[in-house]
């Protein structure tokens, strides 16, 4: 034996190393045992799923998931998703425990999923345990598109006509109104009817997204329209969303040569109102138009949508944008604690709404 290996210093060091190595092996063995214990009783599929999940950021959907009923919880959820989107992180949305789900929430899920996937960021999710809610989501085609590429397109069509159908585009598409009108009037009145108010609302909202959703120019942001048929109650609900800057941010960013430049300040000075919820009410009633431009509001964009509601051509109009929630039909305008970057509109068409004979004979 060489002299060096028999020295007491070496023996001490060697012992220390051996002890450490033994400890490491024990810890590793324990970890392996734990892994095996964890895998016990689980199917291969379950194990694969767990393995897959490790690569995703898990975000739980709100248990009561409705943008109209619980806007702040939903905005909080959207914020979490936006953070991951900005960081290009894969997201897994846990929907297993949701107790309430409506079309406004489904539209959010579908539009967010497409937004992620169009940028090649993986997006995944789980089925709700509640069978009715699970069916609702399956009908929307949310799960169908989870595991397939969607590409970065101008236009998307998702879902089943006469059930839940979602369309997306960046342009103003006036032909869409014709298709939608044919479908929805069959559900509501059992035959094709003309709904001129519906076309007005669709055009104004598409135009708003095309022209104002991005401060950088026209046609930058997608709009999403979800049409949801309720044959039993003979009504159809509509959800329109864009993830642009929102109504108030858009007003703040008007160029100096625009007649809307400094709109918020003019309104605040004129009405002594500070909150956007007050401003939205004034905006929809046309008072803001008068204040800012010095002209009557007659038949202009947002007031034009409210006129449609006032003429009973649509029902149950809700608008959410930035920090404002509005239930227009019930004159309820609330300031939210959270800011939604975008514009959301919900309305319904039912058998009592004004309609006329089908225009194509």
């Amino acid at each position, binding site marked *: 034996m060489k002299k060096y290996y028999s020295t007491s210093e070496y023996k001490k060091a060697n012992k220390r190393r051996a002890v450490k190595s033994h400890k490491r092996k024990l810890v590793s063995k324990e970890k392996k045992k734990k892994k095996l214990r964890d895998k016990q009783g689980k199917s291969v599929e379950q194990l694969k799923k767990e393995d897959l999940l490790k690569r995703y950021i898990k975000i739980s959907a709100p248990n009561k998931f409705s943008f109209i009923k619980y806007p702040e919880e939903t905005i909080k959820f959207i914020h979490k998703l936006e953070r991951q989107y900005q960081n290009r992180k894969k997201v897994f949305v846990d929907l297993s425990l949701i107790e309430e789900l409506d079309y406004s929430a489904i539209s959010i899920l579908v539009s967010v999923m497409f937004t992620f996937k169009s940028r090649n960021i993986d997006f995944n999710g789980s089925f709700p345990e509640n069978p009715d809610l699970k069916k609702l989501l399956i009908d929307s085609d949310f799960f169908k598109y989870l595991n397939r590429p969607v590409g970065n397109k101008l236009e998307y069509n998702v879902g089943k006509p006469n059930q839940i159908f979602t369309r997306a585009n960046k*342009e*103003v*598409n*006036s*032909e869409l*109104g*014709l298709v939608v*009108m044919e479908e929805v009037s069959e559900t509501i009145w059992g035959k094709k009817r*003309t*709904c*001129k*108010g*519906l*076309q*007005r609302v669709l*055009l*104004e909202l598409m*135009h708003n997204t*095309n*022209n104002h959703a991005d401060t950088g120019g*026209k*046609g930058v942001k997608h709009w999403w329209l979800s049409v949801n048929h309720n044959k039993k109650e003979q009504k159809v609900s509509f959800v329109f969303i864009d993830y642009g800057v929102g109504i108030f941010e858009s007003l703040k960013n008007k160029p100096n040569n625009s*007649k809307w430049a400094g709109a918020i300040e003019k309104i605040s000075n004129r009405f002594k109102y500070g909150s956007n919820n007050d401003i939205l009410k004034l905006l929809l009633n046309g008072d803001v138009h008068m204040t800012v*431009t*010095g*002209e*009557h509001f*007659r*038949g*202009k*964009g947002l007031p*034009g949508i409210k006129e449609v509601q006032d*003429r009973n051509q649509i029902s149950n109009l809700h608008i959410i944008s930035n920090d404002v929630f509005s239930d227009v039909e019930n004159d309820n305008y609330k300031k939210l604690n959270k800011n939604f970057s975008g514009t959301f509109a919900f309305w319904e068409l039912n058998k009592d709404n004004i309609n*006329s004979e089908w*225009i*194509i004979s």
Partner: protein
Amino acid sequence: MDNIIIRVKDFSIVPGTRKKDEGKNAHSGEEFREDYLIPKFKEAIKDKKKLTVNLDGTIGYGTSWLEEVFGGLARNFGKNQVNSILEFISEEEPYLIDDIKHYIEHAEKNN
């Protein structure tokens, strides 16, 4: 003397955007004004006739389309000449006529 009549539904039953560049099938107000309305309007001036615009028979109008067509015409020809020549039929949506008159009246301020 008979009026000249122009039916929007002969242009499109789905009148759409303000400008031509706002959609693939825009059915825009700009296109209607330039290609349909202005030639008939000039004909009406030449023949000293009234021009009646029939708004019925479409699935509805956006405000921008109406403003671009009639406000735009007033910006081209002046509101007095437009008011003296144009007449409207809108049995399906009578309120549109007031809206259009407003657009013509305030045409210079809009753009």
